[in-house]
């Protein structure tokens, strides 16, 4: 079991003294907002002891103002009104820390991106707004607790789930950084889908060679333990201390389950190819209609000979490639998938994969007539456009069909060709074309692999496209909402080999950073229970989606045993779903309490900052610190 949080009210006895600092940001703010007037208005707040404006608060002299006031004027809360907190929140927290103040006794008010820059024509209005926003910041910070990072003991080992190129890349990168790795692969061999490919774009290397090279690195590394024919059936614990149960079905019955302790988990379970529905462009009804992966396999086995291109024992003199099969589907045009939704996302890789395949056909079988039927050509990667240009120069004919009118295929009986593809071509002003073909190749997209059992183990977030979801593609790529569980490759969405390996390296680096020290420091913004207020009703528990984050437990309190909610800070994600249903407000997210939000609204409404009540913040500072979490599950 893990140790649970400790929180205590430690009255400091010191009066709450807030320092307010309004930044000019050169003139970015002060050209619109009267920063002196804002500082003067805030000086009237009963809790504000110092209120100043300054040219650049983020500069060294600006930070020194704060540090000096903390030391000389006994400021014990700080509000900075400046640019976005995404830029300098950490800068100012560190300044507080250098002055000996808890870095979380700080509030950042954005009066640049969300005031001066968006109200340029209304200086008075922008200034009035800034006063209210800064007053709200003051009201929030006077109710702020002293917070400390959550410290979690670390297991310097990572479980990588999936032995394709992404999983193997991640494993090699992690092992190279000194971490132990258990690589869990469901199949009987490493390599995943890349092993099925002949040549890969844009390097033209053989898929088998890539896999062989990576496999050699994986198998030759002493820190990587490969478990083939295995899957993850248990995933308990939390970042730094996961307990992962790996089941190998082929092992002896009493030796199938193997417990691995790991600090992080990288999921690299890949994707599945879309399987067209029966009758979709003639699929399943005629042997002349195949998918792109099947065609690539057939092409690999077809020797270059005078007989020309042969697929499934039949000549293919005229081939039509149809893009966007199973991708960019439209409600009402395409049949929904099993979950009732269409695949409206772009599979991203199939345009280049199709054109790359067309180039292979053209170079090996120059007599074959090639037709490319697309909605758009999306060859977005470096050098990918060359496949389109080369295919065009080599004689491929390109037709652009309307979104709502995909091409159709009709098999012929006894004709010269296997059938006819009919399409409307936007490029010739909507002309309807009939193309005689021996073969139709459907450029099928990627769909999420069925990993429901793995998802259920930790309620991993899944996006609207049913792929695993990262927290944010720019701000927190490859991270899931569960700390310590990272994504690598196409399990999070369609991507090519290059992108999958880049994502894998990213995941490996993030895991390595997490596990670089004996303890991890996590943000303290997690749920905290006030034992004196908790009545043990358990409503919060019903709201929590994260297994193990919140439990009910009997605890000793004032000489009696009482039942109340207990948070495991390493497993809580800080969403606050629990806080919303707690009538006595016994559970709150540290740093984001409901009392703080109420007070902020009061300040926004108030006509006079000076009339806001003086707050002594429960006669002191609540000091929320968690014990180092050292145990595993």
């Amino acid at each position, binding site marked *: 079991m893990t140790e649970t949080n400790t929180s205590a009210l430690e009255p400091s006895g010191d009066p709450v003294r807030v320092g307010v600092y309004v930044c000019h940001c050169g003139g970015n703010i002060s050209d619109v907002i009267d920063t002196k007037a804002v500082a003067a208005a805030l000086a009237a707040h009963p809790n504000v002891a110092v209120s100043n404006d300054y040219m650049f608060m983020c500069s060294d002299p600006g930070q020194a103002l704060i540090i000096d006031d903390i030391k000389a004027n006994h400021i014990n809360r700080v509000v900075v009104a400046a640019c976005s*907190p995404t830029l300098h929140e950490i800068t100012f927290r560190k300044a507080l820390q250098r002055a000996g103040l808890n870095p979380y006794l700080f509030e950042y008010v954005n009066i640049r*991106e969300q005031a001066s820059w*968006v109200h340029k024509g209304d200086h008075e209005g922008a200034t009035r707004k800034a006063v209210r*926003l800064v007053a709200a910041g003051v009201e929030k910070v006077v109710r702020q607790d002293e917070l400390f990072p959550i410290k979690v003991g670390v297991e310097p080992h990572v479980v990588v789930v999936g032995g394709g190129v992404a999983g193997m890349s991640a494993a090699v990168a992690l092992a190279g950084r000194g971490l132990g790795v258990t690589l869990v692969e469901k199949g009987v061999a490493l390599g995943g889908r890349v092993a099925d490919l002949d040549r890969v774009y844009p390097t033209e290397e053989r898929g088998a060679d890539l896999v062989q090279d990576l496999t050699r690195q994986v198998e030759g590394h002493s820190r990587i333990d490969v478990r083939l024919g295995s899957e993850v059936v248990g995933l308990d614990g939390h970042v730094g201390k996961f307990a992962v149960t790996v089941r190998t079905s082929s092992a002896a019955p009493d030796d199938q389950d193997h417990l691995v302790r790991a600090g992080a988990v990288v999921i690299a379970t890949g994707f599945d190819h879309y399987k067209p529905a029966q009758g979709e462009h003639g699929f399943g009804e005629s042997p002349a209609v195949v998918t792109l992966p099947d065609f690539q396999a057939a092409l690999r086995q077809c020797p270059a000979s005078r007989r020309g291109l042969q697929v499934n024992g039949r000549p293919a003199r005229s081939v039509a490639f149809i893009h966007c099969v199973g991708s960019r589907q439209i409600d009402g045009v395409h049949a929904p998938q099993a979950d009732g939704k269409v695949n409206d996302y772009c599979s991203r890789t199939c345009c280049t994969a199709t054109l790359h395949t067309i180039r292979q056909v053209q170079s090996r079988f120059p007599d074959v007539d090639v037709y490319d039927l697309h909605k758009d050509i999306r060859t977005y990667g470096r050098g990918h456009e060359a496949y389109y240009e080369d295919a065009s120069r080599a004689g491929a004919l390109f037709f652009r069909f309307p979104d709502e009118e995909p091409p159709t295929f009709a098999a012929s009986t006894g004709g010269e060709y296997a059938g006819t593809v009919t399409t409307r071509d936007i490029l010739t002003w909507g002309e309807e074309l009939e193309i005689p073909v021996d073969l139709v190749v459907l450029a099928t997209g990627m769909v999420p692999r069925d990993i429901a059992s793995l998802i259920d183990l930790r309620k991993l*977030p899944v996006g609207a496209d049913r792929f695993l979801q990262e927290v944010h593609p720019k701000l927190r790529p490859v991270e899931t909402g569960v700390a310590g569980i990272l994504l690598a490759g196409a399990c999070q969405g369609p991507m090519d080999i290059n992108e999958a390996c880049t994502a894998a390296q990213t995941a490996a680096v993030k895991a390595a950073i997490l596990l670089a020290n004996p303890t991890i420091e996590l943000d303290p913004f997690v749920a905290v229970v006030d034992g004196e207020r908790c009545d043990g009703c358990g409503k919060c528990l019903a709201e929590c*989606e994260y297994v193990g984050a919140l439990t009910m437990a009997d605890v000793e309190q004032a000489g009696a045993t009482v039942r109340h909610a207990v948070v495991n800070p390493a497993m809580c994600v800080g969403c606050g779903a629990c806080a*919303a249903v707690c009538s006595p407000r016994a559970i709150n997210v540290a740093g*984001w309490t*409901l009392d703080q939000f109420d007070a902020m609204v009061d300040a*926004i409404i108030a006509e006079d900052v000076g009339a806001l009540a003086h707050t002594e913040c429960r006669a002191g500072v609540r000091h929320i610190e968690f014990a180092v979490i050292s145990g595993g599950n």
Partner: protein
Amino acid sequence: MSPEDDLKILIITTMISSYPGANTVGQARLQYSPGTFIVRVPDPVMLPEEFYLDSFAKGIDGIIIMSSGSDCPYEGAYPRLSKRAGRVYARMKEQGIDTSRLKLTTICTVCKAAFLKEIREMQQNILKAKAA
């Protein structure tokens, strides 16, 4: 001061999507009324029904919840928020509060036009209701 600027509209934003979205609007120097107050939260699912009702009672004219929608990184949070908003609407009706004063929407980090549209619509709705 225009009638729009005299309103007090609370905009609840999420740290991961709509708060950076509001920054994007600022970086583009797109203009909107100063009668808008952006509040940053980890996720709006943390705010109880009473928060909205109390805010209206205190004098907030309108509240726009700019959630992360289906992109929300917290499992189950958006469905819960959506249901909660439904219950708040029901209670607003019971209490005779115009339901157009509350809007649950989704704003991403680059949803500039949608961000401005939501503010404009909320202001128009409130002013229309006040005039009626």
